[in-house]
């Protein structure tokens, strides 16, 4: 009986961990889609980094 309960507990813990992981991944995907949409539809969407180097782009983005 005790062994059965322990097995069930492990099963649920494992399953919960997996569900939380999947939830995290889905949230991350939603955040990523939102961020990319904002960038692509933002004020600089036509030519996002005209004249700027890669490093400058990164710095500008961090400042924003």
């Amino acid at each position, binding site marked *: 009986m005790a062994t*059965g309960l322990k*097995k*069930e507990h492990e*099963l*649920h813990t*494992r*399953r919960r*961990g*997996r569900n*939380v*992981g*999947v939830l995290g991944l889905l949230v991350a995907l939603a955040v*990523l889609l939102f*961020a*990319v949409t*904002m*960038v*692509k539809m933002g004020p600089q969407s036509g030519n*996002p*980094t005209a004249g*700027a*180097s*890669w*490093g*400058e*782009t*990164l710095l500008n*983005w961090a400042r924003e």
Partner: protein
Amino acid sequence: MTDISSHSLQGDRPEAGLSDYVQLMKPRVMSLVIFTALAGIVAAPSDVHPVVALASIICIAVGAGASGALNMWWDADIDARMARTVGRPIAAGAVEPGEAMALGLGLSLLSVAMLSIFANLLAAALLAFTIFFYAVVYTMWLKRWTPQNIVIGGAAGAFPPMIGWAAVTGEITMTSCLLFLVIFLWTPPHFWALALFRKADYADVGVPMLPVVAGEDVTRRQIFGYTALLLPVAIAPAFSAAGGPIYLLVALWATMRFAHEAWQVRARTSEAAAADDYAVEKRFFVTSISYLFLIFGALMADALLRSAIGPFGWPVLF
């Protein structure tokens, strides 16, 4: 009750946890893919928004993971019989083969579709071809058929910097082809070093790796031969649109060190290797991994140097 019933229906197979699915995607291979793809993105002589760059990297990483899952699905039978791979999720019984296949196919489609939206069609097409090449051409066809499996199949691992480059520029250029060639020529020495000290495993499961089919001496000569070919190719990006002085110095030092260790492998006999449990080959295998991180890291350092101080008259020949 339902849980217990479904569990007992699956016998003693433990239900897969999140870490099993992570392992299914070959995280160590993925780290190399992420790093080289990032190098392609950073070194490309064009600009991309950091969010788009991050999204592209994630797509490339997921695509690589998907092809890893498909590889494990197809190779589950031999993985279960090799010491190096017996702990993989399908071989160990943690993940059902069909589940791995579904995950691999699903993530392949998702990563390619997302990359086409986040970056461009060329990058997405290259990613799709890479997944196809690794899962079908290498895993299903070449791996169990020819000792040249990892020479041709190595192309799959060589695409990530080219995909990263294409995600930024929308082009395939001479420089991105050079970066492809560097990894393509690096793969045989890297993988054959592993095959030398895992020869028995491959022989047991009938995978015709070069040391199994042609012997250790031929493999050692081939390792050095491909390293010699790699020498000029690894230096060439220094004088490309992506290169610079940091890359030149690092590539010269690292490639000479790589070649030196390849020569040590070449100069050994099977008896000497067996006597010290393939210590030199194992060291060369580790060196080969750090080598790739070093030179692609140097490529990114040059890109950051250029963005910090602007053009500085470095000769660009490619």
